[in-house]
């Protein structure tokens, strides 16, 4: 496996300067997205998302524990992402690299800042017992844009999840026995859209090749048309003009993605 050669990068950039991409897509077009829920039965909620050949699996597990001291009557969540070694010859070595930490944190930010989960409704006994929602994201195949696939997967899994029964007397969760209640979720779905800068052009949903030659990116979390989170990644800088263009792209792309995800 060879990391995308420089001469391919030159070709990608030249083509982009004409507004074209190798697979025929426009710069603001996503590949085909398929979303499947309920793919892992022991999870309280789960989803498999494919964007082109990029595939992620997300599972929701819930547990009861003590609340954080500064929010005694609210549940909490923890988002973890793992770039499985099976998904790419590039993910070698044991320890989680920065990339997986970043994906976890970007997805966390998108969900947390948009107040998608109403944590106040996840309190069982104030100061003593609250629900923790674990969102665990795994890459299955990396062909670029794992960030957005992870974001969509997390939302799909959250929407699919049902709260397990809790035995108050024994003080334990009855896993496998689900209530009919889904998680307390807001109506507006937070969608993360990452815009990448390749050469001097901006695009969404890069393939592995395109992502290899990108120099900067911004992930925007948007729900109900309102932006609640943002993160810039990678080394190069962006001009204000580019920044504004990115916001335009996000607004355009959001409408399309939102209609897909609302259907879950």
């Amino acid at each position, binding site marked *: 496996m060879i990391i995308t050669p420089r001469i391919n990068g030159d070709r990608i950039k030249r083509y982009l300067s004409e507004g074209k991409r190798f697979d025929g897509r426009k710069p603001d077009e996503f590949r085909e997205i398929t979303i499947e829920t309920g*793919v*892992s*039965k*022991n*999870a*309280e909620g*789960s989803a498999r998302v494919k964007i082109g*050949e990029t595939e992620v*699996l997300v*599972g*929701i*597990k819930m*547990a009861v524990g003590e609340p954080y001291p500064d929010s005694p009557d609210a549940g909490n969540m923890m988002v*973890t992402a*793992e770039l*499985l*070694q*099976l*998904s*790419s*010859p590039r993910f070698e070595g*044991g320890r989680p690299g920065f990339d997986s930490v970043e994906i976890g944190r970007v997805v966390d930010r998108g969900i947390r800042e948009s107040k998608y989960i109403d944590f106040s409704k996840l309190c069982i006994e104030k100061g003593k017992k609250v629900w923790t929602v*674990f969102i*665990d994201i*795994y890459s*299955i*195949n*990396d*062909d670029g844009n794992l960030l957005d696939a992870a974001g969509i997967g997390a939302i799909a899994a959250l929407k699919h999840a049902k709260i397990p029964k809790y035995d108050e007397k024994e003080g334990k969760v009855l*896993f*496998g026995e689900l209530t009919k209640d889904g998680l307390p979720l807001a109506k507006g779905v937070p969608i993360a859209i990452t815009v990448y800068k390749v050469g001097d052009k901006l695009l969404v949903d890069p393939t592995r090749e395109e992502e290899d030659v990108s120099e900067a990116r911004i992930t925007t979390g948007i729900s109900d048309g309102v932006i609640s989170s943002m993160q810039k990644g990678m080394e190069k800088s962006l001009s204000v003009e580019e920044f504004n263009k990115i916001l335009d792209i996000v607004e355009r792309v959001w409408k399309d993605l939102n209609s897909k995800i609302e259907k879950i």
Partner: protein
Amino acid sequence: MVTKTFKRPDGRKVDEMRKITAKVGIVPNADGSAMFSFGDTIAVAAVYGPKMMHPQHSQNAEKGTLRCQYNMLSFSVTDRIRPGPSRRSMEISKITEWALEPVVMLKDFPTQVVDVHINILQANASTRCAGINAAALALAHAGVPMKNLVSSVSIGKLDKQLVVDLIKEEEDWEEGEGATDMPFTFTPDGQLTHVQLDGKITPKQLKEAVELARKATAEIYEIQKKALKEIGGK
């Protein structure tokens, strides 16, 4: 002795396996890949290699290295598993290597390494067996030179009754003598490459268990063979 009247929690006959599915080529990036499931237990395996081995001092000049990594996804079981390797996953990784090594022609790729990554997506017991079956398929799919495939199944003894392909409820059997768990891995020509045992069993019954395992792995082998022959090529 195999009793016909013994009632298993999911209604299966004592020598009946769950529904098996096997498919290759499910991870496009990998040199070879496969998924294998016993009912609700789903394993995926991806193979990368033979390739250069780092660090250099780990290289073996006489033969290649087979490196297996087995891990369960955090949500594959009822009680969430904290992400990261555990002692159990490290042990199963090694067992899997030993189960596969006898059939992999390591002498064909000295100093190099073949990495096998196994992940359990959903668990209802017999996960290491599903993992070994998926790994064998992925290795063949990757074009790694092998003398044969291997096929793995769990045989259990529930109180005094031998059963084939354990589910979790059976692993936790408490009546009478409780549960004895025996995963086996065989080549199609009857070579045993892996066996483990947890529980309590007489040598006589263990020999019967071996026979049950032979029969079951022969069936599994046919399904693995079919999965490899079915595809249209990468």
